[in-house]
């Protein structure tokens, strides 16, 4: 399936882009991360959380095709 991924903060510095659309053939968030790690190896050393449909999710959550975002540590305020 085709999914859209958004990158923020230092994650966007690693990927050198703020979003992209890519073809995903796995099932879980962990599958998606493995595929991103092979494209952006530096992501492995970067701390982040994953949101799907604007809610935080874990590595064992199924990817539904809704909007995915990689979020570095929050630092508002």
């Amino acid at each position: 399936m085709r999914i859209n991924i958004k990158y923020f903060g230092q994650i966007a510095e690693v990927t050198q882009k703020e979003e992209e659309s890519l073809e995903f053939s796995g099932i879980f968030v962990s599958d998606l991360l493995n595929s991103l790690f092979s494209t952006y190896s530096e992501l492995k050393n970067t701390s982040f959380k994953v949101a799907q449909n604007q809610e935080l999710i874990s590595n064992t959550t199924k990817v539904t095709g809704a909007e995915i975002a990689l979020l570095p540590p929050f630092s508002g305020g």
Partner: protein
Amino acid sequence: MQSKKPKNVFQQGAISSDFIGNSIFKHQTKTSIGAHNIFLGQVRADVIDGKTVSAIEYTAYEDMANKKFHEIRESAFEKFDLTCMHIYHSLGTVKAGEICLFVFVSSPRRKVVFEALEFIVEAIKAETPVFGKEIFEDESHQWKINS
């Protein structure tokens, strides 16, 4: 003053003292209020490895952040007897000494506003996807992490 749809909490650049003063002024017609409490987050000129922070550049996952701000707002109204509550957060560049977060709570009674304000500010820091890039005087940068 509860609203059903998430409002836009973000403002471009620093939050001015005029804006804050005017917000206080606007509440003078709401005479059931007996106590206001205000939190102002100010950009601190931290010195890190000999370099001074001159500004913070804020970005956010705006849709999710506005949704989270809305959830925090709803749970604050559920937990505390508040008359009204306002949150404003900066996006873009805010220089050291300028205000980047303005939280304003009002209630008939004072004890409520002290507790509510702390609850709200802590929730904002922990739950909203906002990202601060600390810009140093030499234009290098590092990413801020909330402690």
